[in-house]
């Protein structure tokens, strides 16, 4: 079945650097996915360590006002797509003065793009709203070495079925954060899984910069009936090796303005290779 890309909004700059962006989606339409593109412009001198994913506190799809079917932070959204598909959505990280950082994120409502059985049917709801809770000032106040105020821009593109041949979906897929906290030095966290609708997959995020993987969370067990039935049980480091083995892309590239002794954090860890290539030189002449 043919799929169309419908641009709902194109690079619309937000006047506020901190806000809950809201966009009501059309009242009718059958979406297979929704692509969200975010841009943020560096300060005139530079934009040191500006990670748009940090700015994106939560991205949500809210149906009928209070039914959060997507609700996930920028960091987890980007990583979960990468781990699920083996490759990341586009990400441009630049620290150049006036450079534009850009990241794309995709809400998938079906099993694949163009899935005729699962997708978002907007006519099933009174209202469907895309929400982006963002705060660019988490990178520091707008300045010549951070970001330029008023440059947080949003693009939204729907992968939709033609109005003349809309499929009759059986359901839609969602992706929802249902628990957050900060890890402690020891002890177990035991949390009930959400139980109102079927669960296809579960993701566990434990992010801390400058800390070796498998330190903050060492073991994970998923089961039922007080763990008399176990679905998964094991060490973080073993799960990580197993799951990352299937990735097609396990590298990322940064355009940096480096000062000796500086640190940078990546979206990857267990780093095997770090290549640094200068992009500046002055030719000598006799």
């Amino acid at each position, binding site marked *: 079945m043919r799929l169309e890309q419908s641009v709902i909004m194109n690079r619309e700059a937000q006047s506020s650097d901190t806000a809950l962006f809201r966009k009501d989606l059309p009242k009718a339409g059958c979406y297979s996915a929704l692509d969200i593109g975010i841009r943020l412009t560096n300060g005139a001198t530079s934009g040191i360590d500006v990670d748009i994913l940090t700015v994106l506190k939560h991205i949500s799809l809210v149906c009928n006002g209070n039914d959060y079917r997507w609700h996930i932070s920028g960091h987890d959204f980007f990583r979960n797509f990468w781990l699920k598909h083996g490759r990341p959505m586009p990400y441009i990280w630049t620290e150049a003065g006036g450079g534009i950082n850009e990241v794309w994120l995709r809400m998938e409502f079906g099993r694949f793009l163009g899935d005729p059985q699962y997708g978002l049917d907007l006519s099933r709801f009174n209202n469907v709203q895309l929400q982006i809770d963002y705060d660019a000032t988490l990178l520091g106040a707008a300045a010549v070495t951070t970001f330029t105020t008023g440059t947080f821009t949003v693009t939204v593109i729907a992968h939709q079925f033609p109005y003349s041949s809309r499929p009759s979906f059986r359901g839609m897929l*969602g992706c929802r954060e249902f*628990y*957050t906290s900060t890890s402690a030095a020891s002890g177990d966290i035991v949390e009930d899984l959400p139980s109102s609708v079927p669960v296809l997959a579960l993701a566990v995020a434990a992010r801390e910069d400058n800390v070796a993987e498998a330190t903050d969370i060492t073991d994970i067990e998923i089961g039922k009936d007080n763990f008399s039935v176990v679905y998964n049980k094991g060490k973080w480091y073993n799960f990580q090796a197993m799951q990352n083995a299937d990735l097609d892309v396990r590298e990322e590239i940064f355009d940096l303005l480096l000062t000796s002794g500086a640190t940078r954090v990546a979206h990857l860890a267990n780093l095997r290779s*770090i290549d640094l290539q*200068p992009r500046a030189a002055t030719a000598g002449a006799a």
Partner: protein
Amino acid sequence: MTTSSVNYVAAATTVTGNQVTIIGNTITAPHTAGNTSGQPISAVKFAMKVVGDIHGLLRFPFADPETFDGVLLPADLRTAQIKLTQGGAGAALALIAEEVYPY
């Protein structure tokens, strides 16, 4: 007239988790003197490529992505739990469910 070439080198000297510490120097080569001198770089353009594992996220699929065979149904989920063993303070934790909503 003689002008000197200016080149830059950098190395990731320390790696912990997802963080790298980078030391860089400017190499200026005065042709007339025939020697080199180095000083730390400051705001020099570099491309950095890193290769590794995705930082801080694991994903546990239960169902066949095409047929949904194996999906955890509400009857299973009623008593389903996840247990995380903590070993270090300070990580931002999140649990995320990929769900199927019927119409």
